[in-house]
């Protein structure tokens, strides 16, 4: 086997330029497959991480049906009212966080205009993983205080202790956070009560509920749904557990990844046809040599093995290089996304599974493409092959 490998390598090196061109065909296909599949994995991992940060014991109450408006930044414009006291009495509910999303008129120094603001219950930071760059989060009794996202603070030129005017009322900046999670950095967060007072409204855009330890999240979600239906008379709100939402998003990303991989697979198919073409040419060119090998006693299976190894090696070489380039593209993409968006939005999507799979697959494509030419070589009549000019 090792000796046949040597003969195969010699054969490839003998027609270097053609071998490389053929290898490039496979390389492009595998690069595309690895780059796109790993991109899909990157997105899945990133989504998984952001869900893990929220915690799987958390569920959300939002207007409408499951999947509506999920996945992107928090931007729910539909407010609804909810009886928080009664909700907290539902069995298995440990903690409730409220969030209302509005545009407010802000004056800070010489700048003024409408900005995005979240009115939030003071415990809201227990639902998101944030890092305080300066100051602190809300504590009970904070009324004229705001916490700013790092991006917003920079835009407004504000630091902890500075003041700004929202809808004509003065607020003091008590904290600035940076965040890798779904809580964006370009918002102003103010106490929910203060927002309601200023805008003269009630209601929230979203409610977070944490299940008590030891309770099954799904069961608690069902109880909350029962409660909502009982108290409201209709089901205009839906309760989404992180698990459900995660599943839907992962499924969508999985389908996307498979679709992209399939398209990339077409280019791999073209690469495989290139290998087949090269191998047929090689068999034709080396007809006489095949005749000689048969004359000195090569069995059909041994001739076949030599040619299969040649085509498999071309596949494997293209696959190895393509996997490397594809992996590099993934690293660059993740890095570029981080540079462009400021936060770690993607995770590295290269796994051993993907690398080994890509290598195995490229060898397989090469060998399969070489199967017919190798068979043709093995089946040559030795006398005719020796006569071939």
């Amino acid at each position, binding site marked *: 086997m*090792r*000796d*046949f490998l*040597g*003969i195969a390598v*010699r*054969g490839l*090196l*003998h027609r270097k330029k053609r071998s490389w061109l053929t290898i490039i065909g496979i390389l492009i296909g595998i690069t595309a497959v690895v780059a796109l599949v790993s991109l899909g994995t990157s997105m899945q991992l990133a989504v998984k991480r952001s869900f893990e940060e929220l915690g799987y014991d958390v569920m959300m109450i939002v207007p409408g049906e499951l999947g509506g408006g999920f996945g992107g930044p928090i931007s729910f414009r539909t407010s609804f009212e909810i009886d928080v006291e009664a909700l907290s009495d539902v069995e298995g509910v440990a903690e409730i966080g409220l969030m209302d999303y509005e545009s407010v008129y802000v004056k800070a120094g010489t700048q003024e205009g409408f900005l995005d603001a979240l009115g939030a219950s003071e415990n809201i930071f227990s639902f998101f993983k944030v890092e305080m760059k300066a100051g602190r989060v809300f504590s009970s009794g904070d009324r004229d205080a705001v916490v700013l996202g790092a991006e917003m603070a920079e835009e407004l030129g504000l630091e902890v202790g500075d003041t700004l005017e929202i809808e004509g009322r003065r607020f003091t900046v008590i904290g600035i956070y940076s965040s890798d999670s779904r809580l964006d950095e370009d918002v102003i967060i103010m106490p929910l009560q203060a927002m309601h007072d200023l805008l003269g409204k009630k209601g929230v855009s979203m409610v977070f509920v944490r299940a008590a330890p030891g309770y099954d999240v799904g069961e608690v979600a069902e109880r909350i749904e029962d409660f909502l239906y009982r108290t409201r008379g209709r089901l205009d709100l839906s309760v989404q557990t992180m698990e459900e939402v995660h599943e839907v998003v992962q499924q969508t990303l999985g389908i996307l990844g498979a679709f992209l991989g399939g398209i990339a697979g077409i280019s791999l198919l073209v690469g495989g046809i290139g290998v087949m073409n090269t191998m047929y040419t090689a068999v034709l060119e080396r007809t*006489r*040599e095949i*005749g*000689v*090998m*048969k*004359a*000195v*006693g*090569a*069995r*059909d*299976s*041994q001739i076949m093995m030599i040619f299969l190894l040649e085509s498999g090696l071309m596949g494997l070489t293209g696959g190895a290089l393509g996997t490397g380039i594809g992996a590099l593209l993934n690293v660059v993409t993740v890095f570029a996304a981080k540079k462009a968006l400021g936060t770690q939005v993607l995770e590295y999507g290269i796994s051993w599974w993907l690398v080994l799979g890509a290598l195995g697959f490229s060898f397989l494509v090469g060998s399969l493409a070489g199967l017919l030419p190798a068979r043709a070589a093995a089946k040559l009549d*030795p*006398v005719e092959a*020796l006569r071939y000019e």
Partner: protein
Amino acid sequence: MRTEAIVALEGVWKVYRMGRRRRIEVEALRGVDLQVTRGEFLAVMGPSGSGKSTLLHLMGCLDRPTKGRVLFEGEDVTRLKPSALARIRNRRVGFVFQSFNLSPTLTALGNVELPMIFAGVPRKERLARARELLGKVGLRERERHLPSELSGGEQQRVAIARALANSPDLLLADEPTGNLDTETGRGILSLLSEANREGVTLVVVTHDPEVAATAGRRLRIRDGRIAEGSDA
């Protein structure tokens, strides 16, 4: 069973189908009876197209007769499977061709190794044997050269070393000096004769009277038959 004849042809016919649709039949051999005795040096002569090469291919189990039997060391090889024929060619027969037919991608050493690779000889043993043979044909210093870097005479020496690699019983040479000048041809002939003296049965197809004169027995082929007046 060891018989006196290493290879025997009994009423052998070989008909080739030629042309684009293989509808033209060419009778290369028309009823040949022949015995090659163990250890002899036989020269096969005749005009081109007389069926000499076909005869050689049949003796070497490279081809099967259309009719008749070929006995290799007493065994009828006519009905053997291709893999069994390959095995006989590999272990018992060595071929030397007019146009050398070395593998252009392999070095001189690699070419001599080739039959041993197909026989599954371990690498170390194989290399030692290949070097020994290259030394015997005077090319020990050129083992790393590709065929394209060797002269015609040198290539034919490598081909002889390759043919002897698995210590065959029968050495078949098809116009081995046909592409070489007289002087170089003599060198090749003496290498072949030496192998014969060491016990290998040698059959040479040739036009060259000098080669024929060296042989112990001469055979003429004409129109696919063994001609009158041969030593047969």
